């Protein structure tokens, strides 16, 4: 039904906008703010700004390669 589609689309766009603004703040704006400012409490330390996307990318690559390998093995077993 179209209402469920609309809701899912809205949630997806909301998630993407949140991630984008949070990451922009984290990487670009926060280094220019003094370290005594209260806003630093809402953001993790800066090393995580690199760790989290890189680990997510590596996990995604692993998942994709495992999936491809699994499908290839299954098709080969079915042919034999």
């Amino acid at each position, binding site marked *: 039904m179209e209402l469920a589609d609309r809701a899912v*689309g809205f949630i997806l766009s909301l998630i993407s906008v949140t991630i984008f603004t949070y990451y922009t703040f984290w990487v670009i704006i926060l280094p220019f703010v003094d370290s005594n400012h209260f806003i630093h409490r809402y953001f993790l330390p800066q090393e995580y700004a690199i760790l989290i996307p890189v680990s997510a990318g590596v996990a995604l690559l692993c998942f994709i390669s495992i999936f491809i390998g699994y499908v290839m093995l299954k098709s080969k077993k079915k042919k034999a």
Partner: protein
Amino acid sequence: MKHIVKIITLLMVIATVWVGLLQTSTIPRSHTWLLPIYCVVSLGCYGLLMVGVGLMQFPTCPQEALLLQQDIIEAKGYLKQKGIDVSVS
């Protein structure tokens, strides 16, 4: 073969721009180091946003759905008449 050459040249251009930025330091250095990851994350975010917006704006055409259902019933009746069984089993 040609397509992957195009992709690799594009990546090379982006890499040279980044190294050039590092050398001349127009932007503060800490920002330049984080620039590639930031670009990748923002590209992924943009893709997700486009998917969400497309989902929200998807047209459903309710009249076409009704006509389609009628077509299905008509086709089922016709085939049953000819002796082919198309019930959901």
